[in-house]
């Protein structure tokens, strides 16, 4: 195992609000990978403002994140979208402010998406979890195309005892969430997530996993509206063996 490391968890606003179990699964996985995990006080990475063209607020929130996450060896997020915001877009945001740009680049250089971090930086090759399900994995867009998260989750998933991984056609096609897109253009978003849900259902998988809660809420919401029984979960919950701690997304706790 690599050197012990001090990791700050960028838990993401959606996990914070909707699904703390993903945060605890991330903590467990990071600890298994030899990290000490801390959670600096945080709100959001600023994507809603950034993607809406509100650069001033995006910068103010980014400055807050840069300050809150300074001094750790690594910053890890259970989301390709939020990790991508920090890794790719913070430096773009401060392109014309040299002093903050240096800090943004420094933060970007030690920020990672959770599963990519476990595999690429901590050398994790297998997990000791068990989950007897036929599972398909949806490649959330930012993680896939901004950060190259593709093989890492699959590598760990196939090591889960009892888990059978099956590929869904169009795994790399957007589910139609897109942050505020799904509210601004609900009919288009609906068409996209309807196609996605149909593709997932057609695989005959028991469960669909992904690494981004936004996409998962969207997909889970559509599958349950269709009356589907496909379980929807964040990949971290399965890899951490914590599927008993919380029901699938959209199902009741009792």
């Amino acid at each position, binding site marked *: 195992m690599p050197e012990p490391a001090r990791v700050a968890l960028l838990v993401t606003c959606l996990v914070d609000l909707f699904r703390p179990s993903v945060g*605890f699964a991330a903590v467990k996985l990071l600890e298994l990978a030899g990290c000490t995990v801390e959670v600096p006080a945080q709100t959001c990475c600023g994507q809603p403002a950034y993607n809406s063209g509100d650069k001033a607020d995006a910068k103010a929130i980014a400055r807050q994140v840069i300050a809150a996450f300074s001094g750790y060896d690594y910053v890890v997020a259970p989301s390709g979208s939020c990790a991508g915001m920090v890794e790719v877009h913070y430096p773009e945001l401060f392109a014309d402010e040299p002093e903050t740009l240096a800090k943004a680049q420094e933060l970007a250089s030690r920020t990672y998406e959770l599963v990519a971090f476990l595999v690429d930086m901590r050398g994790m090759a297998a997990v000791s979890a068990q989950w007897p399900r036929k599972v398909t994995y949806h490649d959330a867009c930012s993680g896939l195309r901004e950060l190259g998260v593709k093989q890492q989750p699959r590598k760990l998933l196939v090591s889960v005892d009892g888990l059978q991984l099956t590929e869904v056609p169009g795994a790399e096609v957007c589910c139609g969430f897109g942050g505020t897109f799904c509210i601004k253009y609900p009919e288009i978003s609906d068409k996209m997530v309807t196609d996605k849900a149909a593709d997932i259902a057609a695989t005959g998988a028991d469960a669909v996993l992904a690494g981004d809660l936004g996409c998962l809420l969207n997909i889970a919401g559509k599958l349950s509206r269709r009356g589907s029984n496909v379980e929807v979960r964040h990949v971290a919950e399965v890899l951490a063996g914590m599927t008993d701690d919380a029901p699938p997304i959209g199902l009741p706790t009792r």
Partner: protein
Amino acid sequence: MQPTSHSFPENARAGLADPVLQQALGLARTGFPQRRLEAIARLPEFEALREEGRAIKDHVLAHLDFYLELYERNVTASGGHVHWARTAEEARAAVLDICRAANARIVTKGKSMVAEEIALNDHLEQNGITPVETDLGEYIIQLRHEPPSHIIAPAIHLMKEQVADAFRGAHTELDPARPLADPRALCDEARTVLRPRFLSADVGITGANFLVAETGSSIIVTNEGNGDLTQILPRVHIVVTGIEKIVPTLEDAATLLRLLARSATGQEFSSYTTISTGPRRAGDLDGPEEYHVVLVDNGRSALLGGEFQDMLRCLRCAACLNHCPVYAAVGGHAYGWVYPGPMGAVLTPALVGVGEASHLPNASTFCGRCESVCPVKIPLPKMMRHWREREFAWKLTPPVYRSGLKLWAWVAQRPPLYHALAGIAARVLGWAGVYRGRFRSLPLASGWTAVRDMPAPQGRSFQSLWAEHQRRAGKAR
């Protein structure tokens, strides 16, 4: 054409509700990406070629004035004429003048998006000249009096039944009982009708995929050979194209051609790649007597040196349309003007104004698939974001959305307040959702719950649980 980009949401709704369009898009959605994937798998250096292609276009854009003047000198030296058009109006006037000087009555046309951009057909018709589209897709939409819905497959929104209807409606001289059920019959009929038009046309108008500065040549690619018949048979050949189509050398054009067809249709090369240099020379067996190039700016030079300059690298291959999930959902007409999909979402606001086209750069999930397949690596999502930044700065963003965003951002910059509110929201929504796990409807989130359930939060925010967890761990130690 009058843009209807401001009605994008309504246009999109119409597209989503159109069963023919949905059937047609369903076929295209998997076809184009699969063929591209197979084509680039057969070319190991494809990624390196993309870098090379980008470098060629960036070099040209950095020295555009130099290459345009060199190109003009070489066109003139080969006996051709270059006409500079600052606006669509000047471009239309230049074409009309050439047609009038040639006493043209019938003009054949190869596929040209710039001709669509400057609304050339309407202008010619209004002046007593009959334009005949010779690309099969363009011919079909000309008969149907509608704009193209895709930049390389203009009639992609139609199935063969609509094509048969259009032919029966237009070709009234043919036997009404003829069978038109299969694509072969449709092709044959188009050929039969178009052949005499090719032979009787006075002027042929084409676009250009590339203009070669060192030789003064224009290059077009087609799969139907219609472009060749359009530019070789009539007395006069007019090339109408944008100033950004220039490349320094034939080698550069060859590099970009290797990218173009693979990205567009998944072919190694288009069926016909034709290089034209000047009019017919003494001893040539064929070719036009006159060769004209109308170089259209129409807003392009204003993009030089700014945050949208990269857009001028565009080869018009349509890979971004073919891989866009939003385009695949709503089709090209929803975008309301000439250029749809991601490239249209960046280009249309620049050419018709961001007030008219404000929706287009917003109608993207930023999934990034367009940029990942662009043969010249145009950062399309980034440029759509730049348009959103301008819209926000110019207060074009809808007021409700804007104030909601501002309020959220204000709270997000006050962590203690944010945590308190997130805690309350998690508890309230979590409590309400505890027995069902999801909401079928939620006030203030009807855009979401109209079409899908809203999974309920687990009941506590992570940060409050984590704080508790830390306190317990502290006591345990």
